[in-house]
């Protein structure tokens, strides 16, 4: 994540030019002839910085505005439509019915609260596990081992999500490994199993930002603190914590939002429980009620916006 920042191209130093025009690379063989028009274009663009900037930004801006924000906009608009329940055709007449149903039926509040609780629990568990691990990686382990530890943290991300999910289904099954290891007290399928598996799945996303945050903490600060007579606890509170808190919050943005939107894990190990994602999925896949699904999907969007606004002040967004 730090690496990304060093790639920041700096539009004013002329490097953007070469990035924006990969197609002006000379064809092999005809090099001598092709140089002159390329040069001319170069100098023309040099004299017109505005064209340069447009050429560089129009593709990503197109993606951001049309594909990304456009999709969100369509989602919001369709939340006000309804569906003919018999034929499944969209009825494009704006109405608040979907939101009225969501607010008046208890079940949607229950499921939304359950989803937030699951996401919060996953985040808390991940933070508790990630903090000592990241500290060990950044400060205790020998420098030549650090890269290998990062590799070890990242390796599980290469395995398919579904494979890991179904592996946990087998582990948690009746008479499975979890039963054997706990003497028959496996959590079984349910909300606690969902929290457990999600915490496992998203752990790397918590470790990496904390590791990056701690990596930036100079050892000399820790030594200075010790020289001035602070014990481990005081050093942790006054030196490490202020640096690591924004990193934890940065990691929590990943774990919280990923958990909030998840619907597959809970289908595999969640027993009979359901989260917001399942309701959205059921309304698209089973009920073919896209507008109602869109209305439901605004709940996690709203929760995440509130969360991001709340953490913005902590400086966590600079840690990403």
């Amino acid at each position, binding site marked *: 994540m730090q690496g990304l920042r060093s790639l920041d191209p700096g539009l004013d130093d002329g490097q953007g030019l070469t990035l*924006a*025009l990969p*197609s002006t690379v000379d064809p092999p063989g005809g090099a001598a002839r092709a140089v002159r028009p390329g040069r001319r274009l170069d100098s023309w663009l040099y004299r017109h910085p505005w064209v340069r900037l*447009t*050429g560089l930004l*129009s*593709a990503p801006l*197109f993606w951001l505005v*049309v594909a990304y924000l456009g999709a969100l906009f369509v989602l919001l608009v369709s939340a006000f439509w309804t*569906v*003919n*329940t*018999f*034929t*499944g*055709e*969209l*009825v*494009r007449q704006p109405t608040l019915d979907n939101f009225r*149903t969501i607010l008046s*039926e*208890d*079940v*949607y509040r*229950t*499921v939304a609260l359950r989803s937030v609780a699951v996401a919060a629990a996953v985040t808390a568990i991940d933070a508790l596990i990630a903090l000592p691990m990241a500290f060990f990686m950044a400060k205790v382990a020998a420098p030549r081992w650090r890269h290998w530890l990062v590799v070890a943290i990242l390796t599980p991300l290469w395995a398919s999500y579904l494979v890991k999910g179904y592996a946990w*289904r*087998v582990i948690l*099954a*009746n*008479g*499975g490994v979890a039963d054997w290891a706990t003497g028959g007290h496996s959590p*079984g*399928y349910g909300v606690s199993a969902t929290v457990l598996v999600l915490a496992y799945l998203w752990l790397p996303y918590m470790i990496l930002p904390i590791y990056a945050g701690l990596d930036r903490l100079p050892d000399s600060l820790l030594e200075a603190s010790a020289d001035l007579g602070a014990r481990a606890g005081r050093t942790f509170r006054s030196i490490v914590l202020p640096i690591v808190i924004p990193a934890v919050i940065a990691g929590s943005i990943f774990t919280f939002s990923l958990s909030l939107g998840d619907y597959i894990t809970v*289908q*595999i190990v*969640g*027993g*009979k429980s*359901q989260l917001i994602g399942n*309701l959205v999925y*059921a*309304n*698209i*896949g*089973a*009920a*073919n*009620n896209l507008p109602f699904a869109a209305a439901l999907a605004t709940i996690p969007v709203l929760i995440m916006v509130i969360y991001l606004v709340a953490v913005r002040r902590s400086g966590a967004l600079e840690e990403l």
Partner: protein
Amino acid sequence: MRSVRIGTAIAAAGLLALAGCGGGNGGTKSPGGGLKPPPVAKLASLGPGEGQVNIVAWAGYVENGSNDPKVDWVTGFEKQTGCKVNVKVAGTSDEMVTLMKTGEYDTVSASGDASLRLIYGGDVAPVNTDLVANYKDVFDGLKNKPWNSVDGVAYGIPHGRGANLLMYRTDVVNPAPTSWGVVFDPASPYRGKVTAYDSPIYIADAALYLMKHQPDLGIKNPYALDDKQFNAAIDLLKKQNQVIGEYWSDYTKEIQAFKSGDSVLGTTWQVITNLAQADKAPVQAILPDEGATGWSDTWMVSAKAKHPNCAYLWMNHIISPEANAAVAEWFGEAPSNRLACVKTADKNHCATFHAEDEAYFDKVWYWTTPVEQCLDGRTDVKCKDYAAWTQAWTTVKG
């Protein structure tokens, strides 16, 4: 050069957006009185196959030997017709309707709770039965029924029919159940190990149970429920939720759960029992005393089929005596072709599954889409439609 390419991209995206806005006409009136399906032409004559066919089907309907080398009625079809079969297995009727709406698929094995929605949604075309040579051998009791035709126009080829069964672990469930009561008992000794089908249509199973055990509710048809009857069914399901371990719609998940013992009792299809038994799970399936919900399936052709000829060839193949017998035995249902009965490996198959026994199938309530106009003929009350069923199902799961 760059900007030209971007300009092209913007233009292309604009065209796509326009094309996206163009769809969605036809059939938007409410169901019932005087509604006509959108006009869709049927295939006039059969041409050569297009080389492939995309099928949406129930698990076990399109087997190419990958589940069991002996169970294969696809490879021969592919060799014979040159139509490569691509199958998408759907877990619920709702999923089938959604998949067919994409227009990516040529044919579907639709149950009664999907077929009418597909017809009135304009997603399927009428079927030219003259082009399906084996249609003449289909039981007359299955032809031109309310779930596969409208005003005498056939919209599909009958595939077969059967009942949703009650499966249990023989080593755990004792005594062996004879009634659906065991899955609806809030004080069940199998608490946390009961499973149920994860679809709004499962509400009909509760209604069927109430129909037999609470006659004062006056339920005549489990798919025609007025407010009071509907609420009684939902209450029963909410009580049942306390003993449920998990709901299933993915049949592999149910097999695994019964095999490990996470589920010991619940709704199933015969094919799931077969697969679980093949996996050495000690399970048995029965048709309880109350009767059961069930299905009568129909092969339908998409209105937007890209491979209509291969779809017709497939429909003719799947109801041919050999294939129809094989699929009926594998899935555990009654075949639709009367000549299939002599082709089954178990010569009693047609008797066991009551292939010609219309009196038996009177006790099986085929999946049907609930609509506002009560299906049991009552006109003094309004019944709950499928949208209400869908939202209620969410509240049942909590």
